[in-house]
């Protein structure tokens, strides 16, 4: 009995060794799914797998719950993810919580074609030592062109103007961006927004401004909701990620237009989970996927701006539609007249507190 068991074990171990020699390394890459993962698949994963046949990249669409799942995996001592796509503020949290490893950006990532070091090429977009920026996106407004007459909205004030533009608005169910926009529409200069939000009175002022439209707001939690609400005619305008609006306007030809005024810039990028099993393979992949050319390639499939300065001139045309992508980028000078820069330090400290106040305000 024991002998048989031993033989079986040996045999299976030997088989395991043989198959390991042939097997490919599987990298589990976590991202947002939908059009976004598709753009990464085309721009990064497919070329990398073609060049490295021993690597197989598996997509997992749970970026929405990345932090909680990562923490659960770490507590269980079994981290099955190799690379995770998160927004910058989540990367800061992950770094604070010890869920991600710190990156040496100059050593681990490729230089720009002209020899500029990665840290200089990404510049101040490296908001956390664990974070490898990938795209610049913005949260901004879209409106129904057929419901605003001949006088389309041009400024953030119009979002708060129910007389001029009656109808519902879609806003994200969180304080971030909404409080800033409320203060801007209430006449606070952009340089003073975060100082104002740092005071109790400032938060009250922002919520009071939001009060003026509160009963006309549909609060969304997933980025896909606003384009749907706009397409259904449920709302006359709404905030969402600019790439979602691009798809609705250009690819699906909905009667929607962009209102870029005070678009809120944010970043999305990679973190490498601490305790991942294929760290070396992942770092090799990262060097490839975040170089100047590949970051620029992603913009062929989705209208988010590449995070490297050196990638900007390489942004070309949409892979299917053949239109120039530059005018649809949040970073295009025409769109970026008024931009709100997300204050990561401020929100890392105040997110919990202001979210609580915001939720209490919502429940009133």
């Amino acid at each position, binding site marked *: 009995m024991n002998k048989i068991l031993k033989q079986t074990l040996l045999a299976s171990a030997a088989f395991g060794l043989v198959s390991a020699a042939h097997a490919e390394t599987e990298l589990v890459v976590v991202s947002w799914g939908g059009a976004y993962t598709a753009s990464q698949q085309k721009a990064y994963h497919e070329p990398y797998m073609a060049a490295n046949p021993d690597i197989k990249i598996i997509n997992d669409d749970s970026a*929405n719950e990345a932090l909680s799942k990562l923490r659960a995996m770490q507590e269980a001592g079994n981290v099955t993810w190799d690379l995770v796509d998160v927004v910058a503020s989540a990367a800061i949290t992950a770094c604070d919580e010890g869920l991600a490893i710190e990156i040496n950006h100059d050593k681990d990532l490729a230089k720009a074609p002209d020899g500029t070091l990665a840290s200089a090429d990404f510049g101040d977009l490296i908001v956390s030592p664990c974070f490898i920026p990938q795209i610049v996106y913005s949260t901004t407004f879209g409106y129904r062109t057929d419901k605003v007459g001949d006088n389309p909205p041009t400024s953030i004030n119009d979002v708060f103007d129910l007389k001029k533009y009656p109808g519902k608005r879609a806003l994200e169910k969180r304080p971030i961006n909404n409080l800033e926009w409320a203060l801007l529409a209430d006449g606070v200069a952009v340089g003073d927004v975060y100082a104002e939000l740092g005071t109790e009175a400032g938060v009250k002022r922002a919520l009071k401004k939001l009060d003026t439209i509160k009963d006309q707001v549909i609060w969304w939690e997933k980025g896909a909701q606003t384009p749907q609400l706009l397409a259904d*005619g449920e709302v006359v305008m709404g905030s969402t990620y600019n790439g979602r609006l691009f798809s609705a306007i250009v690819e699906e030809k909905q009667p929607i237009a962009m209102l870029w005024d005070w678009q809120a810039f944010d970043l999305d990028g990679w973190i490498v989970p601490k305790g991942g099993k294929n760290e070396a393979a992942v770092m090799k992949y990262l060097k490839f996927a975040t170089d100047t050319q590949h970051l620029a390639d992603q913009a062929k499939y989705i209208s988010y701006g590449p995070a490297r300065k050196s990638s900007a001139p390489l942004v070309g045309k949409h892979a299917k539609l053949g239109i120039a992508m530059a005018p649809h980028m949040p970073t295009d000078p025409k769109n970026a007249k008024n931009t709100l820069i997300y204050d990561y330090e401020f929100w890392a400290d105040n997110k919990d507190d202001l979210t609580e106040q915001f939720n209490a305000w919502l429940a009133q």
Partner: protein
Amino acid sequence: MSQTLVTVDGVPLKVSLARAQRRGKLKAIGLVVPLFLFILVTFFVPILDMLFRSVENQLVGEVMHRTVPLLNNWDEQSGELPSEEVFAALAEDFIEANETKLGGRVGRRLNYEKPGFSGLFRKTTRKAGSLEAPYQQSFIDINQKWGDVENWKIFKRESAPYTISYYLAAVDLGYGETGEIVRNKDDRRIYLKLFWRTVWMSSLITVICLFLAYPIAYLLSALPTRKSNLLIILVLLPFWTSLLVRTTAWIALLQQEGVINDLIVWLGFVADDNRLSMIHNRTGTIIAMVHILLPFMVLPLYSVMKTIPPSYMKAAKSLGATPFTAFVRIYMPNTVAGIGAGAILVFILSIGYYITPALVGGQSGTLISNFIAFHMSSSLNWGLAAALGAILLAIVLILYFLYDRIVGIDNMKLG
């Protein structure tokens, strides 16, 4: 001396019998063990873990293991900063935290109590290398928050291995200036309101389900089997459809540009610019949840009604009861077991419901479970999520206990 009875093998009969009985018992236990282990691992252990998490607070004391014991000697009422010795220990702890990368976690933990700690710990950890004697001044140079006695009070309070802060936060309480427990300010109270909303909305949904399901179940039980089977499929069909699909279908039906609004505008009941808001609010949540939970009420009712002989009602009528009296005095008391089972099922399911309110709840239809989910996945405040969950569990257990007292749990029939 009496002779011991022995079996053919020469073993005393007593021993042999005991052995056989033991074997039988072991077999019986062996059959139950898998289920027992399964329930233990997937049900009791997670609940215990959750209860533990709602008070557990080891992190601060573990990471700041040099500072915290010294801090216990510091008199927080003195109004003075802790001694230089404490600051020196803090410096050593921060240098270690810079290695272990745990400083940020402590900062985030303390940030739940007061905004600003997160950034303070992140910056201080990063600059830990530059700390030097005199340490107090060195810390204050990095950030003047280290010179604020209030911050030290919070640090000391939350360095104990167990805390009640999560429970306080979960019932809208907090600490006042001198460390006493006070109610949160008006514009921060939220959880009690949501607990109350969750309980009454669940009750309302249960009552609506009961009133809708009762006639359906009666019809099902009264019809001949061939017809009732067809109708049961109609009840079960939505039951088998994905939850998300059903919820999304309600959005398409109820939204302002949706089917129902289009219909009543076309019929002329409301003006085109005055369409009804039936979704993304409380109404939408109740409608969608009633629809989703209805089968849980219909099926237990049906199974109970099926067992009531029609002759009971005939007998009541023949003795002179009006149909109403016969129903109230004969039929309904016979269905109490089904009502109890259905009501408990629907109520307990709806009190923890989360996807439907998240999708169609808007601001007035969100329930406490949405906040538990938020603290689990988004704010990563698992302690608060656990405290909210534990309170919800307690509410359910209390209601269950009351139910047992009033109706009696033996009176329940699930099918």
